[in-house]
């Protein structure tokens, strides 16, 4: 039980790309446990979106409020700065646009 994860070791022991609603029962995981973390990334909730947030880079002051208020972890940071929306998952709720103190985010109709 003392095994520690080696650097770079693959953490996803359950390969969910092999599990779908057509998978035979013998190939599902025991007790439907998933031996991995964060596999929901492979499910793209961006499909749900009917309005899309657009960032106006000129107005953005990198205060990170938008990233904090996002219910879907869709505003990632890179090197201390927010980068483009994760449109694969953004559901278009509009919280970021409303919360932005600098009006740097605009909601556009459609995906």
């Amino acid at each position, binding site marked *: *039980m*003392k095994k*520690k994860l080696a650097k770079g070791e693959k953490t996803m022991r*359950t390969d*969910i790309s092999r*599990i779908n609603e057509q998978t035979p029962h013998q190939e599902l*995981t025991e007790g*439907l446990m*998933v031996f*991995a*973390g*964060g*596999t*929901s*990334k*492979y*499910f*793209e*909730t961006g499909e*749900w*979106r009917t309005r899309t947030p657009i960032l106006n880079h000129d107005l953005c002051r*990198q*205060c*990170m*409020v938008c*990233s*904090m*208020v*996002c*219910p*879907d*972890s*869709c505003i*990632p*940071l890179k090197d*201390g700065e*927010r980068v483009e929306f*994760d449109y*694969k*998952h953004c*559901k*278009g*709720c*509009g*919280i970021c*646009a*409303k*919360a932005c*103190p600098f009006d740097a985010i605009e*909601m556009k109709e459609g995906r």
Partner: protein
Amino acid sequence: MSSYNVKEMMSKKDRLAPGHRMCAGCGATIGVRAVLRALHEEDHAVIANATGCLEVSSFMYPYTAWEDSYIHNAFENAGATLSGVETAYKVLKKKGKLPEDEHFKFIAFGGDGGTYDIGFQSLSGAMERGHDMVYVCYDNGAYMNTGIQRSSATPRFADTTTTPAGKCSDGKMQNRKDLASIIADHDVAYVGQSTFTLNFNDLHQKAEKAIYTEGASFLNIMTPCPRGWRYPTEDIMEICRLAVETCYWPMFEVEHGKWRLTYEPKKKLPIEDFLRPQGRFKHLFKPGNEHLIEQFQAEVDRRWEDLLYKCNR
């Protein structure tokens, strides 16, 4: 406690992955993310989850949104389930079966149904036994997962599907249960009540204290539900602000029995400001129902005075 640097905080890896199936604009996951950000990066966590919106949406086989180990057991027993995990951790460490230099923290999430009501016994037991864990209630004031039925956390007069406002009814007839006080009376290490503020500092500090204070802790976080409260999804931060500024949702903490206000509005706003934007209180604004709003205001005032007294103010 560490000083609060938003940039540093947001640069941490998100412990709740995208791709979960919560509604667009859900308050619960905003709260979960904020709590998990308080975990130190080097620490591992086991998350327990009561059945509810969060659970059915965040681990829909084979998609788990949780980057940490996660266990959902049933609706009414997140407290007991996590106390089993925490005890296992203690004993396996003692027996030398886990690496000494790796540390785990234990956090349970439950909605108000799984916490205030059906899970109350299990929560009370876990808190009384003093397991080194945090139980976080994401309180959206009704059973949202099953379609907005009233809970003991639902405020008075709210229009829910089991307390509908109608010709002979003004909505829910009882005041909400004050669970944070009840848990504080369990003599636990730490209790915090919070919600979302623009910089999330209040919630972050409380989450960090709850996680890193040894013993049982409880966090009560108001996490609005746009569907159940009936407001446009994008307005969530304004709804939270109004809840705090009207003193409907006071921000306080109880550290080893010592009560403290963590925010006091400069000018307490009238309760109408919180009620008006929400469809669930629409009937209160019909002509002739002014007395209901007065009653609501009186209850908010009474509780606020009571809290000030507890905080020795």
